[in-house]
């Protein structure tokens, strides 16, 4: 990690930390299928077999002729001067033609399954909102989760995909699902999740899969990652994504949740160690005085183009999240922080973020 000698290392472990590598199927090529799109695997291995056959044929004939008919004396003439053989040429045109038409028809059928959303999936529609460089999921009941999504095994689910800025792609390898997320319109993807393994007695019936962004979207494209939790109906009923610490919960829980949330949503632009980022650093926003009270620093901001100095406090932080363009930090006159609409009324999560920011204060 040579570059960390000259720059600060990332602040937290990558988002995929702790997600196990997916099981690989028996041919070693694909992660084990966790959805119902069997045609992808079937057609892939059929095409693969055809390709291996032709590769062996071509390479075999080629290498045989190279060895058997190699030039031994400098003036050796070829064994044959044949320049064409119509039956042979017709055969090697028609056979590939038939094969590729089979592949097309199979691929057509398979992709029809993937694009026509079944009615059950319509009834279980999530929204996935992509923005540089994180995912946000809205459940049918209107609640949200960030960089993690829970789906129920055996129940078809549709994702309506929306981008806040540039192109992204919603890619869950284990489900064989990929769809670009195009700004300015909605796309959709659906799948029916399944477990890829048998569970032991008493083991929680839950598996986690990768969700990648597969369309290049800028700086932290590679860190635009989310976890797809496939769980059983029982766990699903507990709505695990709603387990946000409540105001009366201990501050440690709130800080821990805030840290996890910030890591997913905020820290690709804001640093916590003073390093310059896309937005202002969070380091030193508050200091802790001798009595243990948090004291906000003085900061120059631009409000409506007017420069003024304010003291950082809870209200300022919350306002910056809800209306990022209202008071711009003077060092970042162009603003550009993306909107966190879903957070506007989410007091529980906002409290956690605030708690985390305050916990960064120097003593």
């Amino acid at each position: 990690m040579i570059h960390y000698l000259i720059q600060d290392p990332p602040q937290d472990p990558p988002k995929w930390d702790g997600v196990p590598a997916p099981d690989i199927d028996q041919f070693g090529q694909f992660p084990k299928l966790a959805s119902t799109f069997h045609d992808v695997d079937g057609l892939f291995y059929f095409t693969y077999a055809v390709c291996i056959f032709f590769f062996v044929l071509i390479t075999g004939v080629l290498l045989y002729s190279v060895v058997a008919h190699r030039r031994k004396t400098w003036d050796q003439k070829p064994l044959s001067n044949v320049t064409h053989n119509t039956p042979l040429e017709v055969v090697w045109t028609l056979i590939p033609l038939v094969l590729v038409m089979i592949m097309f028809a199979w691929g057509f059928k398979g992709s029809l399954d993937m694009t026509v959303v079944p009615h059950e999936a319509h009834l279980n529609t999530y929204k996935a909102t992509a923005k540089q460089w994180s995912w946000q999921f809205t459940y049918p009941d209107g609640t949200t989760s960030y960089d993690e999504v829970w789906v129920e095994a055996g129940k078809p689910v549709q994702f309506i995909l929306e981008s806040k800025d540039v192109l992204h792609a919603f890619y869950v390898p284990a489900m064989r699902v990929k769809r670009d997320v195009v700004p300015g319109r909605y796309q959709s993807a659906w799948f029916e999740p399944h477990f890829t393994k048998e569970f032991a007695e008493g083991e929680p019936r839950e598996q986690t899969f990768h969700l990648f962004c597969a369309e290049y979207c800028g700086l932290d494209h590679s860190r635009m990652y989310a976890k797809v939790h496939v769980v059983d109906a029982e766990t699903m009923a507990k709505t695990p994504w709603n387990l946000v610490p409540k105001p009366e919960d201990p501050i440690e829980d709130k800080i821990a949740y805030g840290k996890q949330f910030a890591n997913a949503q905020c820290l690709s632009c804001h640093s916590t160690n003073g390093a310059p980022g896309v937005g202002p650093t969070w380091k030193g926003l508050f200091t802790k005085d001798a009595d243990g009270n948090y004291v906000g620093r003085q900061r120059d901001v631009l409000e409506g183009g007017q420069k003024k100095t304010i003291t950082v406090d809870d209200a300022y932080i919350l306002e910056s999240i809800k209306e990022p363009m209202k008071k711009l930090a003077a060092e970042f006159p162009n603003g550009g922080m993306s909107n966190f609409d879903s957070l506007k009324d989410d007091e529980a999560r906002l409290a956690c973020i605030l708690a985390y920011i305050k916990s960064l204060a120097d003593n």
Partner: protein
Amino acid sequence: MSHDDHHAVVVPAPGPEFVPHEVAHHFSTPVQEFQSGKLGFWLFLATEILLFGGLFAAYFYFHEVYPETFRVGGQQLDWRLGALNTSVLLLSSWTMAMGVRSAQTSQKSKTLMFLGLTVLGAAIFMVIKFFEYKAKNEHGLIVFSELFRPFIENPDGTGSLAWFQDYHGVMAGVPHGHMFFAIYLTMTAIHGLHVVIGAGLIIWIMFGTAKGRFHAGYFMPVDLVGLYWHLVDLIWIFLFPLLYLVP
């Protein structure tokens, strides 16, 4: 030894006011040279067609997406000026064709006259274009002084363009009103650039004609510039109804 068997092929001049033409070393006949030059130029014109084709494709695409924008936008253009410009360009195309014909028949002064008229046509076209742009500028549809200002984005996802100030004027209520004018500006500006380049080429050809380089035995440059000028006309033939009449 390689140069020994190479003789330059020379096309004699038809009269004392003309100069003979020496065929380039790698061609064996003037016909071969002429046909090569011409095929090459036709290929170049094909690339021009496809270059403009991209713009036309964008036009048709957004005409389909925002029909209302294009309808209202098209009404803001003055079809009289457009029709006048079309006529000017058609006339200049005719003078160009006549200029080429004069060169083919070794009529030096007539060639000069027709080429000069063509340049005049180009100039008139650009002047009319200037007044059209000026009107758009005054109405806030294309504010040229604000053209290169950044797009101002509001936090609620909306935003406004500096060069398009008619959000609440004639284009109020149609989706993305700037779209028509952006496409209008881009297409006519690139076309206008071609007009200017074409006029420059014609002036260059006029110098050659004055020196007597072009005559019945060698008129390829006049012919090729003529083709270029007709292409400029050809594109305008489609631009005129699409921008001024149809929407």
